[in-house]
């Protein structure tokens, strides 16, 4: 019951936010929070639930971003039409990359994903057709509404909110389905899960592909909002880390963890940059870094774990099952 009350408060706030804080910068901040929440929630499917810590998720982000900008720059289409292409690209890449890498354990998987992402970034940096280091830009002047190039952040905000809701719904559905159960089991003991008939590789691969698809949507939206992508901003490893950090900060493996993480980190980053960035002494990152360190130090399970721990139902295990 408490859950539902909380949920409705959050939803009501999310819908009303742009009306409550209506300056263009605040609205854009809200939209960015949602955008990063989409990416971090997508990452959460494989990084949180399946326990496969991908540090190279930016490749899928890049698939979306490049597909959207490419649709415009190469074919004169609305970037919107790049989204399906981006999804196909991301899912295909996830399948190719996932088969060999998902069998790797722990750190090796993380490193392999970094290697894949860096390889892609370097390849794109050296590919003239994809704009090389210069990158690709979207329509500078919107031709019609489908170019999704708005002055106000309001349309972005509600678009992102809708897509975030879909992402969370998919995640929720997944965690409550067989796939979600299998993922959790595989995370604990792949060997046991397989002995019980859970097709470990396939399940992980599906999760990876699903996560890749959603991440690519985030990437496409990102590129559309900023009207630009280059290898650094579309495929740079820092974006992966940022996504991961948000999920971890809020609580990985929890439905709303990534949203909480994004809602804290994005404003923190933008506001500390706005206040301190101009001084040029690097103070922004001193503050930003210190806050992350403090959260990790005192709430290593993520902020949301504070709430959930308390609400975990109490069970009486009594004296076991013996007579």
């Amino acid at each position, binding site marked *: 019951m408490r859950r539902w009350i909380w949920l409705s408060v959050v939803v009501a706030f999310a819908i009303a936010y742009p009306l409550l804080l209506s300056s263009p910068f605040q609205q854009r901040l809200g939209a960015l929070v949602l955008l990063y929440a989409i990416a971090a929630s997508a990452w959460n499917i494989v990084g949180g639930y399946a326990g496969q810590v991908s540090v190279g998720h930016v490749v899928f982000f890049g698939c979306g971003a490049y597909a959207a900008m490419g649709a415009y720059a190469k074919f004169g289409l609305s970037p919107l039409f790049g989204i399906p292409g981006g999804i196909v690209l991301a899912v295909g890449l996830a399948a190719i990359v996932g088969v060999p890498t998902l069998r790797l354990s722990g750190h090796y998987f993380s490193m392999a994903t970094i290697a894949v992402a860096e390889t892609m970034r370097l390849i794109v940096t050296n590919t003239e057709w994809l704009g090389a280091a210069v990158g690709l830009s979207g329509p500078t002047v919107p031709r019609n509404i489908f170019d999704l190039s708005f002055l106000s952040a309001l349309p972005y905000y509600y678009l992102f909110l809708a897509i975030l809701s879909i992402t969370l719904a998919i995640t929720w559905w997944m965690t*409550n*389905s*067989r796939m979600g*159960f*299998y993922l*959790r*089991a595989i*995370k*604990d*003991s792949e*060997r*046991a*899960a*397989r*002995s*019980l*008939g*859970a*097709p*470990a590789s396939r399940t992980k691969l599906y999760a990876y592909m699903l996560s890749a698809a959603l991440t690519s949507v985030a990437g496409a939206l990102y590129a559309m909002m900023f009207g630009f992508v280059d290898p650094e901003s579309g495929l740079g490893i820092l974006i992966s880390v940022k996504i991961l950090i948000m999920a971890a900060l809020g609580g990985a493996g929890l439905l709303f963890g990534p949203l909480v993480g994004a809602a804290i980190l994005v404003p923190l980053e933008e506001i500390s940059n706005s206040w301190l960035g101009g001084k040029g002494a690097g103070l922004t990152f001193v503050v930003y870094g210190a806050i992350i360190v403090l959260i990790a130090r005192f709430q290593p399970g993520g902020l949301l774990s504070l709430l959930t721990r308390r609400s975990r*139902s109490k*069970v009486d*295990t*009594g004296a*076991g*099952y*013996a*007579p």
Partner: protein
Amino acid sequence: MLLEARGITKAFGSFKAVDDASVTLEQGDILGLIGPNGAGKSTFFNCLTGDLKATSGRVLFEATDITDFTPEQRAGLGLARTFQVPQTFEGMTVLENVMIGAFLRTAHRKEAETRARAVLERVGMSRLAEAPARSLGTPGRKRLEIARALATEPKVLLLDEAMAGLNAHEVRLAIDLVRDIHRSGITLVIVEHIMEVIMSLASRVMVFHQGKEIARGSPQEVTSNPAVIAAYLGTRAAKAAAGHTPVELMGGPDP
């Protein structure tokens, strides 16, 4: 023939943990597998279930060659097992652990839950359904392993020391449970160091030593075999198995 293994060998480097072992299992069997520690019993199990890839030899299930099948495929065919070193899903409740097994035969959460609860009832763990699995001790974990395996609705169930850590009374209850499982039409292979279990359950016994089969036969035949006594049982257990009373070990309690 339900399950057949032909000439299984498993080598770790130059060391052969299982050396040319064969076994056939008929519908309705309870095969007991005994042997000294490190004889290769678990390794043999792992080759049957696909956990390990045998160095050579073939495994047949219902006349299908399953040597190259993955563990999950074999589970799908009806081959279930428990682990000697319990592989509990620590982050889940007892019920959820069993649901993972039940999901093999149904994709629906509700249905899986119903089946899992039924299995827990059967193994006498209903009261613990909502308990976190990590709170179980070793014996509890072992019983959970049986429940999970049962939930996959197997045709053959391989139990690797599933009763280790139970006291005498609990062993008796567990024997009843296994009988009950057997009666429901499941064929069993059991590895156990508790002779009472082997004596009262197994229809046939196979004895492993240094990766090789050294004896087979009825429980009585095997436990009176001098080679088995020398390699495995020791005099005390042999006597106990033969119906003798336990001898004093540590000089008895102080007066």
